[in-house]
């Protein structure tokens, strides 16, 4: 038996060891391809866009922003967009989570999953065309309701807030559902069983066990779904009232850039749009920071 003397120990751990302790090692380097790609392809053009937004066609450097925030027709688009995007995103998640929880228990999930995910294949145009027709005054929806006597006159569901809402719901749901389903099923069932034996009802198992474990996934899903809904554009024009209730911020940016051909203002509005989204996303991701992140396995195996 040989015991090593203290003198033989290396005086100081090697650089590699010290870096590893700070989280830098071979694995960390794997961020590089993605980071380089994004830096190279995105950051320069993006800065260019920022500068563009600060060089207005006339006036001081902040003229575009001043104009946006002094014209109610422009700044109201923020609330109009939020008023669409937030409820739709929330509703989508609220639908996706229970449905995913049920589908998780099914043995033959494939058909149902395919059906529920189907809308992502449709594209905004098909959804818009379909909804205009389906929900229109002479569409099957209104006709059916009149036929079974629920309605006397057709409901107006298109070319207003609800038309855009419906299209965002249809296109956003599969997105939320697909991600939620995969996140939900990644959680070890043994954890749920343990909670059940400790007296947790289905509801409490959901709030105390599943929800905290799902927070990282759901918050990312929320953010991505929200960003997608916030950027709504073609359906707001085709299905909504683009001069009225569904005058979303993309329309403002678009018309500045492509109708007035004031690309500088267009960039400014786009950057404001990004900033609003960033606020929401950071708030959500910030909340997530309070929750557990890590392996969703509570067991040895």
């Amino acid at each position, binding site marked *: 038996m040989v015991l090593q003397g203290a003198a033989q120990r290396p005086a100081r751990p090697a650089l590699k060891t010290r870096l590893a302790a700070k989280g830098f090692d071979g694995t960390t380097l794997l961020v590089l391809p993605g980071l380089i790609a994004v830096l190279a392809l995105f950051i320069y053009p993006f800065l260019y866009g920022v500068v563009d937004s600060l060089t207005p066609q006339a006036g001081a450097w902040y003229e575009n922003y001043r104009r946006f925030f002094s014209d109610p027709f422009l700044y109201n688009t923020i609330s109009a967009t939020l008023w669409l995007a937030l409820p739709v995103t929330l509703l989508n998640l609220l639908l996706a989570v229970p449905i995913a929880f049920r589908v998780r228990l099914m043995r033959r999930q494939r058909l149902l999953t395919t059906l529920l995910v189907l809308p992502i294949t449709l594209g905004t145009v098909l959804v818009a065309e379909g909804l205009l027709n389906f929900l229109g*005054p*002479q569409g099957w929806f209104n006709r059916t309701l009149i036929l079974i006597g629920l309605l006397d006159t057709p409901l107006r569901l298109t070319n207003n807030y609800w038309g855009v809402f419906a299209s965002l719901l249809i296109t956003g749901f599969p997105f939320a559902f697909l991600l939620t389903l995969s996140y939900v099923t990644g959680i070890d069932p043994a954890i749920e069983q343990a909670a059940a034996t400790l007296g947790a009802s289905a509801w409490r198992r959901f709030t105390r066990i599943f929800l905290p474990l799902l927070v990282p996934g759901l918050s990312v899903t929320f953010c991505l779904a929200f960003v997608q809904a916030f950027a709504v554009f073609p359906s707001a024009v085709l299905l*909504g*009232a*683009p*001069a*009225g209730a569904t005058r979303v911020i993309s329309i403002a940016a678009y018309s500045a850039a*492509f*109708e007035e051909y004031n*690309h500088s203002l267009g960039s400014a509005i786009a950057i404001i749009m990004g900033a609003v989204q960033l606020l929401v996303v950071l708030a959500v991701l910030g909340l997530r920071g309070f929750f557990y992140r890590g392996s969703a396995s509570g067991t040895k195996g």
Partner: protein
Amino acid sequence: ALKAPSSPVTITVADVAGNLALTQAAMERYTQAKPEWASRIAFTKAPAPELPAKLKAQQAAGRVDIDLVLTGTDALAAGLDQGIWTDLSPYKADLPDLQSIYIPQAFKMQAMAKDHGVIVSYYPSGPLIEYMPDRVKTPPKSAEELLAWTKENKNKFIYARPSNSGPGRTFLMGLPYLLKDADPRDPEKGWDKTWAFLEEIGQNIEYYASGTTQTMRELGEGTRDIVVSTTGWDINPRVLGTVPAEAEVGTLAGFHWVTDAHYMVVPKGVSEEKLAVLLDLMNFMLTPQSQAYAYDQGYFYPGPAVKDVPLSMAPEESQAAIKEFGRPQYEAWIAENPLEIPLDAEKLVAAFRIWDERIGAKKG
């Protein structure tokens, strides 16, 4: 004079106005007629507003791969503003004498190109009203009557948001003439009566459609009884079957046509050699034989921008469609009513904005 290229070139044509329906067949004939000039013409299509952005990116990088753009007044004006079109004035000699060959009103519209483009198709457009005769027994004959009619028949009249719709925009530009507004060419200061009229009629309109197609569909399926239209939007949808053939058109007393045209323009950055071919192609397109294709299925009725191109020169199916769905009264209407050129881009955008703020924002 134009010099043929050292070897036949390939030409890329981008259509942002829906113009190829009127001209593609003719252009394809060009490669047959002049194989030593152009070996192939590639056609691409794009929505109008985005094209200038793409051209700017290409020009900033010094690699333009679009040789010819077919555009309406919107992208034409936008491009002029941003300086992306080639000035054709040095090449006037290589083009036909436009004034002598164009229909007079087409030549007026040619001025809008400021020598940076050449009109290829032209039509008087509107504004017209289109209605179903079985549901509208006594169609309104003037703007006032239209307003009165909508009051009695709430939600039965519709027009589309002007910035998304040709007929909508023609209606908007035509109203100041109908209502005898102070300055029909100044939407910001001279359109008081127009805006008041639109606000009032707006009370009887359920909502503003997002496109003309939508208004035509609602007319067809019976949800609405009167919509605004143009000559092309009257004939072509009936040919296609979206609107019943029985639909009728009418005019409002004292109306002025607000005409419309499509232009051939060349982006900056196209090589000299290609430019020669393009100029030759323009010459070719302005021949009556080529122009006759513009009758199409009535989509830009009548279509040709040059004089003396009778329907009989058009292809057989064109002739048949127009015989069946065309309207003999158009000839007289065109002859009897004044023709106006549309607003220039800046004014038009201002009009759209005012419409959105004052009219459109009230619905939804």
